[in-house]
C-alpha cells in the first residue's frame, strides 16, 4: 500500500464514520487544468485601480477592466477597446470610436458615456491624465460608440497616456462606478475585461478569484502585453496570497500552486533544481534602485553634498546586496532610464562610472559646508529591497565620515515620514530608499521621480528648471529622434542636479510549474495565452 492509497483509505473510513462530513476534495483532471493557482507579489488588499495605485492592484485590474489602448512589447500603444481614432491637423481634437461587441460583466454594453466618466475619474489621479485635464476644453460622448476629447493645446502622447501600463492605468468602468469620487473606493467590481472578479470569494490577504468572462470578444491580433487578443485559456484563476517566501517556494514545489510571480533570489537556486519548475526573468524592464535626498534641508540642499554621494557610491555594492551573486540579475545604471529601451542614455553618467573616489567625495562634502550634523536615513526594514539598500548606504555614509541617524522602521512609516517637509529633527528626514519599476522609467511620461518641479515634485522636492525644460521638450516631441535628444539632455541635467541617486538596475525572476505554458515576460503577469495541463 502506498501513501496515497493509505490517505484515501483513511479518508474513506472517515467518510463512513461521519456520513459525508469526512471527504477529500475532488477536482477532476479537466477542472484542475482549467484552474490556475497564482501567488502574487503582494496581497490584493483593495480593488480599485484608480483609488489604490499599488502594482498588485493594477495587475489584477488588468484582467477585469479593459483599456482603450494597450502598450505592447515594443512599448508602443496599440488599439484595444478603440476601433479607430482621428486627430485634427491642429492636434486639438481627438475623436475615438469604440470597437463593436464590448460588454461589461453585468451584460450591459460599453458605451461612450462609460468611457467619458472613466477618463474623467482617471484624469484626476494620473499624472498624464492631470496634464490632459489641465489643457482640456471638453470631454464628451458624441454617440453611444464615439467620444471626443477637445484640448486647448496639442498633446502628442495621448495614445500613450490612455494605454500606458504604469499606475493608474486608464481602465474603463461603467458610468455609475466611474462617477465615484476618485479619492474614494468603488463598491462594485464590474469591468469589461476577459476575467470577472468573484467578489464573494475574495478573502483580502488570502485569496482572490477571477472567472472567465464568456462574452468577452478579444481582438484578432496576437496578444502582446496589454495589446492584442486577450484569449483566456483558463476558466478560473485563483490568487493565493502566501506572505512567506519559503512557504511559497515549498507550495510551488509541492504542486499546490502553479505560478509564483516573484521568487526571492535566495530561493531561486532551489527552484531551478526542481525538474517540474521553470524559472525565468519576469520582466525585462526590471527595476531601478534609488535613494532620495531631501533637497530642502542641509546637507543635501547643497548640490555638492548630493554629488559627493554619487561620487562615492558603488552600484555594485547595492546590487549585490539586493540580488546576491547572480550577475544576470543586475547591471550598473549611469543614468535614470531603463536599459535596453529606445530612450536609454548614459549622457552625463560619468559621475557614476569608474573607480569610486571616497576622498573626492569627502572634499565635495566639506565644500558643501557639512559639519558632522546627523543625517536622518529612514529605512523600511520590512521591504527587502529598501533594507538591503539602506544597509549599504549607512556603510557608505560612515565611510564618508558622515554622522548617520539610521532610522530602522517599516514601509508604512516611511510612507508618511517622507511626506514631511519639516527639518529632520522635527519629524522630517534627509534620505529614504525606494525603487522604481523599469516600465515607469522608459520615458518621462509616468516618471514622477525624475521631476524637478519643487513643491510639486516627488518626495525630496528637487527644483531644477533644466530638468523641467527637458521634460516639457519630451512631451512636445513629435519624433523618436526628438524624444531621444530631449531625454539625453534630461538625463544629464538630472545627474548634474542629482534629482535622486540611482543605485543600479536589477531584474527579478518568476517561476511556474512545467505543466503551465504561455507565461510571457513583461512588466506585469499576463494571464491571456496561459494554459495548463492537469
Amino acid at each position, binding site marked *: 500500500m502506498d501513501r496515497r492509497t493509505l490517505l484515501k483509505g483513511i479518508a474513506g473510513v472517515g467518510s463512513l464514520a461521519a456520513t459525508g462530513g469526512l471527504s477529500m476534495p475532488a477536482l477532476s483532471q479537466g477542472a484542475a487544468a482549467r484552474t490556475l493557482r497564482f501567488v502574487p507579489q503582494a496581497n490584493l488588499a483593495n480593488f480599485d485601480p484608480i483609488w489604490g495605485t499599488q502594482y498588485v492592484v493594477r495587475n489584477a485590474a488588468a484582467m477585469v477592466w479593459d483599456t482603450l489602448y494597450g502598450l505592447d512589447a515594443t512599448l508602443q500603444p496599440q488599439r484595444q477597446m478603440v476601433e479607430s481614432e482621428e486627430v485634427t491637423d491642429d492636434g486639438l481634437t481627438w475623436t475615438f470610436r469604440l470597437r463593436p461587441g464590448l460588454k461589461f460583466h453585468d451584460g450591459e454594453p460599453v458605451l461612450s458615456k462609460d468611457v467619458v466618466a472613466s477618463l474623467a475619474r482617471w484624469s484626476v489621479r494620473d499624472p498624464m491624465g492631470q496634464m490632459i485635464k489641465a489643457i482640456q476644453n471638453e470631454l464628451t460622448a458624441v454617440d453611444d460608440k464615439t467620444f471626443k476629447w477637445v484640448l486647448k493645446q496639442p498633446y502628442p502622447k495621448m495614445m500613450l497616456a490612455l494605454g500606458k501600463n504604469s499606475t493608474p492605468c486608464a481602465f474603463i468602468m461603467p458610468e455609475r462606478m466611474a462617477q465615484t469620487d476618485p479619492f474614494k473606493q468603488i463598491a462594485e467590481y464590474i469591468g469589461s475585461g476577459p476575467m470577472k472578479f468573484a467578489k464573494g470569494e475574495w478573502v483580502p490577504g488570502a485569496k482572490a478569484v477571477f472567472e472567465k468572462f464568456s462574452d468577452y470578444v478579444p481582438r484578432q491580433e496576437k496578444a502582446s502585453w496589454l495589446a492584442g487578443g486577450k484569449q483566456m485559456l483558463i476558466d478560473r484563476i485563483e490568487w493565493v496570497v502566501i506572505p512567506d517566501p*519559503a512557504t511559497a517556494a515549498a507550495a510551488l514545489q509541492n504542486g499546490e500552486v502553479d505560478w509564483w510571480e516573484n521568487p526571492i533570489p535566495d530561493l531561486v537556486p532551489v527552484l531551478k533544481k526542481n525538474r517540474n519548475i521553470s524559472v525565468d526573468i519576469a520582466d525585462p524592464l526590471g527595476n531601478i534602485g534609488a535613494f532620495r535626498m531631501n533637497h530642502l534641508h542641509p546637507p543635501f540642499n547643497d548640490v555638492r553634498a548630493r554629488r559627493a554621494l554619487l561620487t562615492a557610491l558603488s552600484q555594485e555594492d547595492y546590487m549585490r546586496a539586493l540580488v546576491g551573486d547572480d550577475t544576470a540579475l543586475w547591471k550598473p545604471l549611469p543614468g535614470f532610464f531603463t536599459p535596453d529601451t529606445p530612450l536609454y542614455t548614459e549622457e552625463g553618467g560619468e559621475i557614476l562610472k569608474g573607480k569610486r573616489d571616497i576622498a573626492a567625495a569627502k572634499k565635495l562634502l566639506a565644500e558643501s559646508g557639512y559639519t558632522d550634523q546627523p543625517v536622518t536615513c529612514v529605512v523600511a526594514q520590512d521591504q527587502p529591497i529598501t533594507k538591503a539598500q539602506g544597509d549599504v548606504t549607512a556603510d557608505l555614509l560612515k565611510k564618508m565620515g558622515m554622522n548617520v541617524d539610521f532610522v530602522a522602521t517599516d514601509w508604512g512609516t516611511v510612507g508618511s515620514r517622507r511626506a514631511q517637509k519639516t527639518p529632520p529633527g522635527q519629524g522630517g528626514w534627509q534620505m529614504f530608499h525606494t525603487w522604481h519599476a523599469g516600465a515607469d522609467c522608459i520615458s518621462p511620461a509616468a516618471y514622477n521621480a525624475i521631476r524637478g518641479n519643487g513643491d510639486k515634485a516627488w518626495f525630496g522636492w528637487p527644483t531644477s528648471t533644466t530638468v523641467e525644460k527637458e521634460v516639457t521638450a519630451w512631451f512636445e516631441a513629435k519624433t523618436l529622434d526628438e524624444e531621444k535628444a530631449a531625454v539625453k539632455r534630461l538625463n544629464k541635467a538630472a545627474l548634474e542636479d542629482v534629482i535622486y541617486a540611482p543605485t543600479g538596475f536589477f531584474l527579478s525572476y518568476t517561476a511556474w510549474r512545467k505543466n503551465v505554458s504561455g507565461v510571457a515576460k513583461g512588466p506585469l503577469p499576463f494571464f491571456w495565452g496561459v494554459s495548463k495541463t492537469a
Partner: protein
Amino acid sequence: MISYILRRIVATMPVMAVVALFVFSLLYIAPGDPAAVIAGDQASPADVERIRQALGLDRPFLIQFGSWVWRILHGDLGTSIFTNLPVSSLIAQRLEPTLSLMAMTLVLTILIAVPLGVVAAWKAGTWLDRTIMAFAVFGFSIPVFVVGYILAYVFALHLEWLPVQGYTPLAEGFWPWLVNLILPAVALGCVYIALIARITRAAMLEVLQQDYVRTARAKGLGQNSILFIHALKNAAVPIVTVIGIGIALLIGGAVVTESVFAIPGLGRLTIDAILRRDYPVIQGIVLLFSFLYVLVNLMVDVTYTLVDPRIRY
C-alpha cells in the same frame, strides 16, 4: 456561580473600554499613514492629503474617537480603510481558521503534554524523565517558524504526506480541514507542549509527595489510578492556569504560524492591518482578542471549581 459569572461579564465592560481608549490613542500617535500606503509610491503629496481627508483621518482625535465609539455602541466595528469591507465581515472570514488552529493546537497540547508531564514526575530522576525534560527544553528553545519549516520540509516536501500551506473550511469536509491543520498545530503546539509538560511534572511531583498518595499506594491502588485519578486531579489547578494563559499566548503564536503556513486567520489579518495602518481593522481585532482573553480567564476560574470542589465564588 451564575451571579459570579454575570458579575465577571459585566466587569469586562470597563476593561474593554480602557482597552479601546488605549488602542485608539496608541494608533493615533503611532507613526505611519494609511493614506500614503493607499496612494502608492507614485502619488503626489497633494493626492495623499486628499485621500487622508476622504478617509476622515484629518479630523481631531476626539471627533475620530467619539465617532468610533458611537459606532461600536451600535454594534458596528467600522469599515476597513483598504478593502472597503466591514471589519466584522473581515473578522468573521478569519475567525474559523484561527479558532480551528487554536483548538487543534490545544487538543494536541493537552493530549501530549499532560501524559508526558505525569510520566516524567512518576519516573522523576530516571532517563525517561530526563529525556522528556530535554524535549521540553528543546520545545521552548526552538522558534515556531523554524519548527514550521522543518515540518513542512519533512512531511510536505520530502514525504509528500501533508500540504505545505492553506486552509480548508470545515464545511468542505473534516479530512481536508484536518490535513491542513496538522503541521501548523504541531509547530504552534511545540512550545506549549514543553511548557505544560514541565508545569504538569512540577505540580505532580509536589502532589506525589503528599500523604494521601502514600496512603493510596499502601491501600494497593494501581499506579494508573494513583497518577491519573487521584494525583492529577489535585495537581490540576496550576495546570489549568497555565493552559488558560497558554490560550492567550496561542493568539500571539498564531500570528507567526499563520504566516508560515499561509492560513488566512486573524493573525495574518492583524499583521496585514498593522503594516498598512488599517486602523479600524486593528482596533476591531484588538477588541476581539481582549474579549477572548477575558473570556478565557473567566473559563479558567470556572474550571477551578470543577477540579477543586473547595474553591467556591
